[in-house]
Structure formats: C-alpha cells, structure tokens
C-alpha cells in the first residue's frame, strides 16, 4: 500500500473496476433462472394415460410367500408407490414394510442390466439371443448325456400357477420337479399344521380368542403371513377391555413378544417341556419351570388360566431342533380346548405355503452337488449360498456343478457363482397369478416397462421350450401372459379380472415332490458347551437376507432394538453387568461351527442365559447397500435339522461370548428406552378402562354450526383463557392459536382474525387436519415409516459413503455414521419405551409410539424461525417452506417432540457424494413432493400433497372433500389400522370422533402446544393372578 500506482502496473482502482464488472456479470448470470430445459412430448399418446396424473394397477406383492394384494401407483410410466389393495381378502388394504420397499428392489441400482455369461471366469454382458441359445445348447447336452434326471431347479416358494408350470417345463426337458425354497418359512409349524389340522396354514382368528398363548410364534415378525396376522391381531386388541390377553413364551421378546401382556422368559430348548406341561402330557409344571428357568408359579398361573379360559388360541413357532414337536403340542392344546373351528380355522386355509420345500431338501441337493452328480442347476428368487450355514458348504458344492444358471435380478452370493445369468423381471414388471387363500385367485400384472433389459422367467421358459420341436407342444402360447389369458377365460374376462386384481378362482395346481428325509440331528456334538444359549432369528425387516439391498429396510430401525445398518449381539443386562459389557462393546460369539464379532446391545427382553443375533445382514455381495454391512450369524450354526420337518435349527446350540476390547457407538435411532416420567406413551389397564364411561360426543352433526360442524372459536373448546392447560379441549382441536394465530390473542386490540378466521373469505380455516394414533392397536411394526419414506422422498442417510469428511478428503465410512450422530431423516419414527423391569426382571411392558410432527396449534418451532419458513397454515398444518428455510435449526432446537430433521448433506442433490437416490432409485421419487437440498429443515407435512390433491379433485368435481375420502401414506399402509387422519373440525370424519375418545391424550400436553396428533392410550391386560401394573 505504498502509492496509488502499483509497481506491477495494475492499479487498485482498476482492480476494483474489474471486480465490479465481474460482480455485475455474476449477478446477471446468477439471478437468471434461464436454464435451457426441454419439453419432450410423447410420440404417440398412450391410452388411458394423462401426463402428470397417476394410474393405479392392482397387482400382487411378491416380497414374501403370502401374496398380499397391492395397488401400484404409476406416474408417467414409473411406479412410485405401493399401497394395499382394499379388495384383497388376505391383506385388506394393508401393506407391510417389506412390501412397501419392493419398489427399491425394482429400482435397485445394482440390478443386473441384462443377461450375463461367464467367460474366462468373469461375468460379462451378453444378449438375450445368445444367452438363450447357450441355455438351449446346455439343455440339449444334458439331455443327450442322459443326465437330465439329475438336474436341479431351486425356485422361491411362491403361490400361483408358476410352480406347476415350471414343473411342466422341467418335465418336458426330462428334469425332476423343482425345489420350492423359502429360507424364512416356519417349517416346523407347517409340518405340525399338516399333521394336526390337515392344512399347512389354517386361518387364525385372534379376535375370537379370550387368551392367546404364543410359544415362540412371532406372528407379527415373520411367522406366516404377517399382514393378515397383524390385521386380525389389531382387530382383537381393538376390542379394548374385551380384548384377549396375550402371553408370550420364548427366549427372546421379539416384536410379537413385546406386544404381549406377559412374558415367560423360557430358556431355548425348554419350549417343548412347557408346551407339554400346559398340555398336561407327561411333564409337570415344576419340571418345565425348572428346565425353562422361570418361576413355577408363573407357569402354573398360565396353566390355570388356560384351562379356565374358552376359547383360547395357542400358537407355536420355535426354530429349534424340536420345532415340530412344540407346534404339535400346541395344536393338541387347541384341539383339547375345542379351539379348532373357533380360533383355528382349517377350512379357511392360507394357500401360500402348500408346497414349501424344507432345508433338508437343500441339504440333500448340496450333498448331490458336492458328489458331482448334478449336471446343471438353476436358481431363481432364492439365495441358498447366503441363507444356509457355511457349515453346509453349499457354495463349494455348487462349484462342482458344470453349468449353473441364475435367474436372479440381483448380484447375490448365489448368482455370483453362476455361469449364466438370465435376470428375471421384477414382480412389478411381469405377469403372474397367485392363490393367497384357497379358492381365491389374485393376478399380478406389470405396472411398468422393465427398468433394465430383463425378462420374466416364465417368458424365458416359454421361449426356450418353443425353440425346440420336442418341447414346443406343451407350450402353445407365445408368452406367459397369453397362457394366463387362455387359462382365465379369454381376453375380455381377463381384462375384467385385472381391474380388481382378485376374484374367486383357482391357479394351476401342481403336486409337491416327495421331500428329502430329514436327518436326526447329531445333537450334543455340534451344540458346543459355551456359557450361553445361542438364539438366532430372522430379522422382521430383512428376513434371512432378502431385504438387505434395500436402503429403506437397512435404514429402518429394527422394531425391537431400534438399531439400523449393523448387526448386534443381544445380551441380558444382568449378564452384561456380570461380564462388564456395555452397549457397543464388541463381542465375539464362538460356537464349534464358527465365530462372529458384533457390538453388544444390552436388551431387557432376552432370557438371561441367552445371546441372540439377527439374520439378514453380513452379505458379501448383493449390491452396494448390502455388501459388507453387519455379520451373518448362520456361520455360528451347524447344519442341524428338526428331524420331523427338515427345518434348519436356528436355536439349540451353545456359544461362548468374549469381549474383544473394541467399542463403537451403536447405530441406533433411540435416545432412551425409558420415558423418565414424561408420559409420552400412556397406557391404561382393561379394568380401569371399564370404569370410564364412553363419553357423549360433544360435536355431532346434529348440533353443527352453519359452518359445517366447526365450532366458533372460544365456544365449546374449553380454551377461553389462552395459556392455561386444559384437558377438555379435544373436540375439534381448535386450539386458541390455531383459531387465532393472527387474531385477538395475538393482537389484543384487534378484532380481525385474518385468514385464520373460519369465516374468512378464503375459507382456509374451515378445516383442522388432525390424526389419531391408537396405541392399543399399534404393534410397532414400522410399516408406516417405510410408507412415509416412499411417499415423501425421504433420503436414507446411513450408507457407508454418506458420512462426513473427518478431514479434507478423508471420509467417515462407518455404516450409519450419520445415524450415530442423530441425523436420521425419519419424519415418522417409532419410539419404543420399556416400563418396569429396571432390575432385569422379565416383568416389563413395552409401549410403541409413532412419533411425528404433532402439527401443534401453538407450535414452539414457529416463533423462533427468523425467516418465517415455518408457520401454521389456517387449516391446521404446521408447514415447513423449504425455499424460505436458511437452515438455522432454531426450530429443531425448540421442538419438544424432536421431529424436525435437517439436511446436513446434499442427500437430494445428484452431484453430491451423499446423494441418496442413485439412478434409477430416483425414478421412485414422488413428483408431488419437493426433493430437499442441503441445509434445509424438513419434517412431516401430514402428506399435504395428498390434502391438496383431494381438494383439487373435489373442486374439479364441484363438491366438498368427502369425509374419509383420502388419508396419509402412513395411515393407508398401517396393517394395524392404528392411524386415522382427517378433518377434526368436521364431525363427519372418523378422526373427529376418535379424537374425543375416552382414551385420548396429547403428548406433552402441559407445554400448551395444542397438538393435532391425538394418541389413544394402550390397553393392558395384566395377569389375573398378579396385581395390575399399568
């Protein structure tokens, strides 16, 4: 700064001039929203399609064997949301978390793009023509060598015509029937049901029972068809004070166990003794209690209650080496108590499990392959390499097969070993049918064109068969679709059938092949002698691993432990104290078969002598979201079978547990498992509930004011004095602030209430959108959470590449790194609280609370926003305006419910490392909802896009929105029917009635937030023998 003229010739003033002009140019460019964007029209407009408006196709969910009905919402040629089909007799409009996330299988970025063939040891892309030619050639070779009879086809267990058709195709090529493999199936129960009731899966009527006893049958997790189970269960619990009491017997409180009123914490392996004791067949209560490690009095009380209560329902679904015997004992109790035909209905059988093969079939196949007997093996929709214990050696056995064909759509562990990949189209891209109940036909139709160059396996079978003179005769139609049309009465009848998706009818029936004999488990030798019983169980979300490649399911916190993106070892608090183990300490679990290392999770709901590990993680392939996440506890298991059913025994061995000395934070979405007296999740006992009279409805259509049921502010709402807590304010939820945010209370001298006045010309304040959540029905299954992810474009944030930079260029690649920091984005989360059991006793209660933005009438977040990015809309929504938000996070800090979520990274921006929707996952994004960018706060909107859509539709049709015309995504999918959404200011909506229920309460009512979410207290049914605990 010496002179005006710098020695180097550039004057300061010149520099400023240049800077100024550059700035102006920057302003011109920067402020212009002129970006060349194209409008691409159709070449030929498709029929029945309006650009920008959704079409809905009724089809069938194929994520598990149950075959629920779904309706696929398709916008501009892309499926964007799955919802339950209300006309489907099995699922009745509900859909579980797995079903919701079928879309992420469809749009999985790691799907095979097209057929692949192994050349020089590497899988390379090929064409369908070449791939099918190769397949035809290999089939010919096998046939001419005379070894076709030793070929094997492993197909997923599914209902419908396809299995029988597949058998026809195999027979035409001289090959034996296929193996219908379902790693998740509860084979012990299936076998016992066949023997006791004559059908693999009788319908269960939970509502008809007065007492339900489950011996390890996790009917809300994975035991049978979960959605119909849950519908029936919620209906039963919806009877409130008349609902059945539920006792759970098992080594671990699963999600089902947590829903029980009482838990008998039996050691693994003692279930049979308990069942026999309850049955009164050769085992005394004292002996059973001794074996189980539970007080004899507790067991005696249950036996007495079971004898005294009619009708009851006893279900069993253990996974030990005696699973069938346990289930048979349970069936015997049902038969003796006269429950068959009352609570167990063999006549209304679920048909999905008719021909499920057993683990012993896979073991037999593995043995044959290892011996080099199998010339060619096909695998479709199953992943036996991952879902069988390494002790079986399936992968090594497969290497001995000269030619291996996979129809997998994903690069899973089994497909990676194959020589030819003929990727199957996703269920949402292909035709099919299913038989959910006997006598019911459900159709599966493609909702969109295939995302990749895949082909439905059925069509591949048709083309292969028709390419050869010898086999063409059995396949007269050119494709599976034509075959289905011919079978279902021609094109016209078929089109009518497609409209609803379900009808009475039948599918092509096949005969199940003879099952391989199970081997007697070598027992003691393989069981080991560790200090702990080992309890391995399928994850309710990931199953035995099939869900692992879907980020929604990886991110969704486990309903029981609230852990995501990792495996964990569950250990009882008392055992943990004894061994000095804290949450997150790395434990090595060792059995004779192998060892795994995972962080500890100290869990009250596990039997003290037991450690539990969930299946589903630990993939070594299967795409970016699955590979390298967690561990697979199958490596701890020997190939031990239940001798009667041929099921793999998941429990029954012993393990030793040692600390490695490492520690890492558990990837959990939970802050505390205790309520600390906050009254977030409230409950009432059935006997207390009986003393509360059902109130007279205060708002009825009869005394409605001219404004259609809307009470004028200050009248009848109990809120004449603002700031005073008042429990009588439920009707209409018209909090003083919602009714008056800019009116008299805000400006004491003003008479104008602005647009918040119900009489305001805009009509904006006519409604008060609200929600009720019935905790007596809610099971904590978390289907609502996934529905919310799907509907609202919520990013997943836990993948290893989504972490932060710890220093420039160095990234935190811990799976779930963001979640450890509390940065998950679940607009709707399921909180799980324990009551009691502080001393480690099994006598504790669990309460689940779906926690979402409460849309407070007097919202703490609103006044602290410096830029008015969050405000209260006149119709009762707490609105977050993304384009106003500057990311101060004051709102989140001031929110007592902690339901606001901040975009710490550019999860919605494709050029960011943390982008959550890699192509084509972004095809699923809902066009009605803004994808949020970095630095923006977001939260539950009460599905405002659905509100607006309904309002627009009503307006176009010249009417008002009809009561209960639409609902939010979470309420739509809920398999418990616990969530109700609607207009609380209009008495003709269901929610207005439920909001004044005698069980209604608001969370943190004392904060005067006047929430629009009303919870209905859980109803507990304590044991008649013990004092009430609520």
């Amino acid at each position, binding site marked *: 700064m010496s002179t*005006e003229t710098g020695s180097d010739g550039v004057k300061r003033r010149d520099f400023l001039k240049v800077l100024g002009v550059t700035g102006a140019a920057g302003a011109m460019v920067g402020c*212009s*929203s002129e970006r060349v964007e*194209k409008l691409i*029209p159709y*070449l030929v407009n498709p029929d029945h399609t309006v650009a920008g*408006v959704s079409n809905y196709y009724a089809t069938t969910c194929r994520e598990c064997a149950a075959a629920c009905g779904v309706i696929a919402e398709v916008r501009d040629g892309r499926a964007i949301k799955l919802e339950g089909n209300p006309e489907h007799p099995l699922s009745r409009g509900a859909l579980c978390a797995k079903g919701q996330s079928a879309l992420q299988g469809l749009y999985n970025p790691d799907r095979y793009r097209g057929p692949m063939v192994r050349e020089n040891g590497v899988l390379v892309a090929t064409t369908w023509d070449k791939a099918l030619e190769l397949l035809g050639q290999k089939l010919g070779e096998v046939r001419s060598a005379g070894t076709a009879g030793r070929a094997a086809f492993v197909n997923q267990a599914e209902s419908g015509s396809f299995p029988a058709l597949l058998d026809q195709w195999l027979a035409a090529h001289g090959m034996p029937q296929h193996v219908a493999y379902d790693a998740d199936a509860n084979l012990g129960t299936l076998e016992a049901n066949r023997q006791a009731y004559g059908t693999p899966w009788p319908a269960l009527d939970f509502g008809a029972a007065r007492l339900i006893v489950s011996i390890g049958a996790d009917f809300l997790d994975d035991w049978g068809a979960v959605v119909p189970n849950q519908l029936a269960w919620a209906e039963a619990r919806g009877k409130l004070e008349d609902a059945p009491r539920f006792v759970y017997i098992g080594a671990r409180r699963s999600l089902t166990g947590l829903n029980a009123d009482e838990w008998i914490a039996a050691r693994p392996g003692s279930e049979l003794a308990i069942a026999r004791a309850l049955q009164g067949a050769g085992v005394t209560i004292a002996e059973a209690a001794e074996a189980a490690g539970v007080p004899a009095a507790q067991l005696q009380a249950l036996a007495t209650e079971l004898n005294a209560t009619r009708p009851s329902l006893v279900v069993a679904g253990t996974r030990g080496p005696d699973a069938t015997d346990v289930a048979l004992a349970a069936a015997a109790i049902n038969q003796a108590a006269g429950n068959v035909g009352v609570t167990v209905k063999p006549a209304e059988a679920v048909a999905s499990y008719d021909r499920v093969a057993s683990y012993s079939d896979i073991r037999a196949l593995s043995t044959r392959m290892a011996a080099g007997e199998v010339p060619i093996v096909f695998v479709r929709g199953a992943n036996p390499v991952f879902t069988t214990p390494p002790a079986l050696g399936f992968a090594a056995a497969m290497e001995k097969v000269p030619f291996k064909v996979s129809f997998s759509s994903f690069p899973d562990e089994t497909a990676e070993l194959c020589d030819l990949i003929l990727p199957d189209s996703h269920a949402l891209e292909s035709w099919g049918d299913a038989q959910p109940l006997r006598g019911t036909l459900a159709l599966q139709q493609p909702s969109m064109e295939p995302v990749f160059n895949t082909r439905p396996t059925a069509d591949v079978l048709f083309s292969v068969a028709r390419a050869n003179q010898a086999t063409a005769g059995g396949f007269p139609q050119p494709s599976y679709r034509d075959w289905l049309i011919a079978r279902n009465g021609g094109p016209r009848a078929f089109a009518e059938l497609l409209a609803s998706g379900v009808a009475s009818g039948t599918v092509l029936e096949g005969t199940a092949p003879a099952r391989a004999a199970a081997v007697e488990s070598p027992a003691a030798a393989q069981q080991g002698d560790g200090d702990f019983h080992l309890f391995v169980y399928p994850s309710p979300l990931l199953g035995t691993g099939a869900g692992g490649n879907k980020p929604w399911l990886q991110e969704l916190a486990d309903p029981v432990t609230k852990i995501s993106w990792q495996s964990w070892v569950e250990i009882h608090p008392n055992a943990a104290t004894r061994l000095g183990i804290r949450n997150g300490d790395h434990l090595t679990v060792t059995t004779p078969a192998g060892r795994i290392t995972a962080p500890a999770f100290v869990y009250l709901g596990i039997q003290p002598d037991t450690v539990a590990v969930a299946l589903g993680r630990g993939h070594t392939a299967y795409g970016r979201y699955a590979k390298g996440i967690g561990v697979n506890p199958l490596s701890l298991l020997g190939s031990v079978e239940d001798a009667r059913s041929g099921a793999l025994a998941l429990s029954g061995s012993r393990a030793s547990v040692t600390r490695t000395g490492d520690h890492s934070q558990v990837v959990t979405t939970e802050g505390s498992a205790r309520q600390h007296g906050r009254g977030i999740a409230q409950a009432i006992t059935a006997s207390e509930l009986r003393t509360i009279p059902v109130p007279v409805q205060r708002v009825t259509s009869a005394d409605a004011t001219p404004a259609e049921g809307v009470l004028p502010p200050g009248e009848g709402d109990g809120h004449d004095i603002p700031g005073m807590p008042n429990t009588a304010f439920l009707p209409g939820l018209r909090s003083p602030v919602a009714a008056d945010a800019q009116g008299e209370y805000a400006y004491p001298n003003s008479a104008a209430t602005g*647009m918040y006045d119900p009489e305001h010309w805009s009509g904006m304040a006519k409604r008060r959108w609200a929600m009720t959540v019935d905790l007596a029905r809610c099971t904590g299954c978390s289907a609502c959470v996934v529905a919310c992810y799907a509907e609202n474009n919520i990013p997943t944030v836990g993948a290893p590449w989504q972490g932060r930079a710890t220093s420039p260029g160095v990234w935190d690649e811990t799976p779930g790194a963001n979640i450890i920091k509390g940065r998950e984005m679940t607009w709707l989360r399921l909180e799980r609280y324990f009551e009691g059991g502080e001393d480690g006793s099994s006598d504790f209660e669990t309460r689940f609370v779906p926690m979402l933005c409460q849309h407070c009438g007097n919202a703490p977040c609103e006044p602290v926003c410096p830029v008015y990015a969050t405000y209260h809309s006149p119709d009762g929504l707490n609105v977050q305006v*993304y384009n106003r938000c500057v990311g101060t996070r004051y709102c989140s800090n001031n929110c007592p419910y902690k339901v606001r979520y901040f975009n710490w990274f550019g999860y919605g921006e494709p050029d960011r490392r943390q982008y959550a929707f890699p192509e084509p996952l972004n095809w699923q994004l809902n066009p009605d909802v803004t994808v949020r960018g970095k630095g923006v706060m977001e939260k539950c909107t009460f599905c405002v*896009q659905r509100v607006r859509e309904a309002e627009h539709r009503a307006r176009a049709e010249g009417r008002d929105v009809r009561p209960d015309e639409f609902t939010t995504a979470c309420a739509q999918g809920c398999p418990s029917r616990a969530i109700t959404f609607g207009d609380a200011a209009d008495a003709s909506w269901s929610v207005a009635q439920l909001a004044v229920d005698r069980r209604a309460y608001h969370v943190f009512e004392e904060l005067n937030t006047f929430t629009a979410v009303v919870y209905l207290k859980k109803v507990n049914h304590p044991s008649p023998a013990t004092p009430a605990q609520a």
Partner: protein
Amino acid sequence: MTRRRKWAAIPGLALIAVTATVLSAYSGAQAGGAGQVAPAPQATAAPAAPRDTVALRQARDTMAASGPWAYSAASTPQGRAPQQPIDFPHPQHVQSLQMNCLYCHSTANKSPDPGMPAVNTCMGCHTIIGAGLPEIQKLQKYYADSTPIPWVRVHKVPDYVQFPHMAHVNADVQCQTCHGDVQKMPRVFQYSSLNMGWCVNCHVENKVRYDCSTCHY
C-alpha cells in the same frame, strides 16, 4: 488510504452497485431475446435473426404487462423467446383455424401438467396439410425417425413450487392471463414474470388461499 482516494472509492462502489442492478434488471427483461434479436438495424446485423423479428418485438412490447421494474423481473427470464426446433405458429392454428388450446394441450384441465401434444397429434393433420412446407417437413422427419420433438421450455416455475394447471383452468382462469395472447405470438415468449409476488397478487385479487403451503410443499 488518503482522504481523496476514500472519497473517490465510495461513490465508485455505489456506482458499480447501481450499474450492476440496472444491468441485471435490463438483462432480465431482455434475456433470451438478446442473443437472437438484432440490437440495432446495422449493416452487420446478427446472423440468423428470425424473419419475424419486428413482429416479435412489437408483440412483446405491447403485450408484456410489465417493464423491467415490475415485480423485479431481474430474477426471471420474463420476455424470453427461445428458438424452437420447429417454428410453430400459434396464430395460424389459434386465430386462423380457431383451434382450442385444449386440443393440443389436452391435459391442462385435468392434470397439474398442461401436456404437450404427442407428435402423432400433429401428424393427424400434417400428414396431408402443408406437407411441402419446410417446417412441416421437419415435423415429418421427427415422426419418421420416431423421435419426439425437443421443444424448449418457455414457462417454468422452480421445483419447489407446485402449480396445478387443472385447478386454475377449472376456476376459469384464461390461459392468456398467465401465458399472454399466445394466439398472437409468432414465437412464444415468457409473458409473465412468474415471480411469487405475481402469483400472490392474483390469488389475493381472486380471493383464493395464498398461504405458503398452497404451493410450497
């Protein structure tokens, strides 16, 4: 820093700021047009000026509701008239042939998206009519090649704005209210500013709800 220089710097900076604002505003008003419309009738006029430059400018001058200062057009490309792959004459179709807007933009009354006509909609007439004209031959080539026409988007609201066309059309808002007299436009340009103030004014005047969550969600 000497006193003299300080006094020189402050008005200098102020001048730069004012210039930037004016330039920005002017460019906003002229954006899009500037590249294609010759600025002055010089001998070395910009090449490839459209044949209806004068008509285009006149139409824009008379129809644009606002100058550079209304609703801060600085931030929108109001008045932009991009060159389209086919020089589609709206006046010929709407004025001379009396075609309804909804004939081609057929979903404007039933979808958030007004809809662009499928190529075979054009071909419904132009297989025969005007088959020899150069612009029609472009159309026919697109159709023969099974390629959709890559129209350049003129009107766009940001991604965080939900604008349902059907709600407006069904409320008897004329297309021209927002899009201008497209029937008189030789080439379509952005008629309105599409700024939020412009939206809200209309909502208030027409007594419809105007809180944020009406459009932002």
